[in-house]
């Protein structure tokens, strides 16, 4: 089997998806691509089942909140080709007070709790998820605590403001 590398992956993705998949960067050798919520399931299914790519191990799903961006949530998938030891990171930027993205549970059962955790902390709705409930926080919680607008400590405290430290 030929050694798979980032260039071959990029080539394959370009061939199949064209402009729908953008290469963002390769920080520390880990290829990072971005796509839209509409294409994410096709992309995941393609890289999972393609005979050459075979990113069939779902390492992780999580999200990041960028409150100052237009599309303020980023859902991040980490995939792994175990045979060739190559990782792939896929980012999907979504927006809105109730950001939504299709669920990957149809491809991997392991996505179930990862998506529940992401929903629990960021409020991202995974459409088609069989059981989208809170997982670590209590059911009565009304907010999504990992969003940046929720402070860790009492926001009225002044002794920890950044400007005391020159920022």
């Amino acid at each position: 089997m030929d050694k798979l590398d980032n260039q071959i992956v990029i080539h394959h993705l370009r061939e199949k998806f064209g402009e729908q998949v953008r290469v963002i960067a390769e920080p520390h050798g880990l290829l990072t691509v971005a796509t839209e919520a509409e294409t994410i399931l096709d992309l995941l299914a393609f890289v999972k089942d393609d005979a050459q790519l075979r990113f069939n191990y779902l390492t992780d799903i999580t999200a990041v909140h960028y409150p100052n961006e237009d599309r303020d949530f980023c859902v991040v998938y980490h995939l792994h080709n175990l045979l060739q030891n190559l990782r792939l990171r896929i980012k999907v930027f979504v927006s809105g007070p109730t950001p939504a993205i299709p669920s990957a549970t149809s491809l991997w059962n392991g996505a179930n709790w990862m998506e529940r955790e992401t929903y629990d902390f960021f409020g991202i709705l995974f459409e088609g998820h069989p059981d989208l409930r809170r997982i670590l926080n209590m059911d009565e919680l009304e907010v999504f605590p990992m969003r940046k607008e929720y402070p860790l400590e009492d926001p009225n405290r002044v002794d920890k403001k950044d400007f005391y430290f020159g920022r």
Partner: protein
Amino acid sequence: MSKPITKITPNAAVFFDNDPQDELITLNIGPTHPATHGVFQNVVQIDGERIVSGVSTIGYIHRAFEKIAEHRPFYQITPLTDRLNYCSSPINNMGWHMTVEKLLDIELPKRVQYMRVIVMELARIADHIICNGILGVDTGAFSGFLYVMQEREFIYEIYEEICGSRLTTNIGRVGGFERDFNEIAFRKIEEFLKRFPPVLKEFENLFVRNRIFIERTSGVAAVTPEAALDYSWSGPILRATGVDYDVRATAPYSSYEEFEFDVPVGTNGDVYDRFMVRNDEMWQSLRIIEQALEKIKKEPAGVFHADVPEFYLPPKEQVYTNMEALIYHFKIVMGEWETPKSEVYHAVEGANGELGFYLIHDGGRTPYRLHFRRPSFVNYQMFAPMSSGMLISDAIINMSSLNVIAGELDA
């Protein structure tokens, strides 16, 4: 012997309308049941002794580490990682340091890398001792647990010599260790290499060909490799199904590529295979520690951190006498270090599987986002679905063979 589990229906809900005549019993296992070995709950519906369906509730000791980490400089996050898998804290510590070092492009001297390998392998042994010992207890064999517990105590004594604490170790710093291993530590590690093999052999003899143990564990909760990969399993329980994925071998870190060790794999993926994989891994860990000690002797003595003054705290005496040391000390403590805007995913082979750190850094004093990929969390989600149809007693030993640590489960 029951058939291996090939297809698992996820989320078999516990409360659906499958019981018109009210024949089934709903039972709570946990959150503080001794069999769960940690604070998490399983509500199961049982028909006699057989589980019909179950649902897991977790989060009882959720401490919001990811949120706290967004408000702390890198070196203050190490104590948080201690409390993930508290049975093998050093692996978490080292994993975190390596993540930051990857971000900052710090190359460690070989001696430091070998020292890390020693600490991590000791931690792996300590963790596997507990898991296998507890598995023995849950199958009715208490003595093995007590025999090996003494050795875990000895590993904790080695930790004490290295860093001063025992359970939540906080070993090492970004860029190396806070101090060199002392003479006593080296002597104790060598003593451990001598005294542990006979104890492990004795422990093995109690279980490996013990007919009661085999009948109790063999074929119980057998999982196929396909199902395991579908549920993103990693670590010993994945290797027990026959998939040879070990981060140390696949993507070596901390100079693991220089060591000679085998990756033990099972064939059936049942509880017995998981026990055997963990057992063999302890022997491999001993081999690795032995090699690391040999390698350390060939390296220049007294090197215990990389030469990165802008990230590694200077010795306190120098802070009072040396201008540069004072400046670096101030900058590091106040978080005024120059850090790149980047993102890093770094994985180490934790005792339970792939422990990953996903760090997004915007150049500020604290991580912009830090996500822990916790093996216990990912591994545990198959537990409730796979328990359907199992006897309660089998489900209990299945749970202990998964080695779910509540701290890692909930973060």
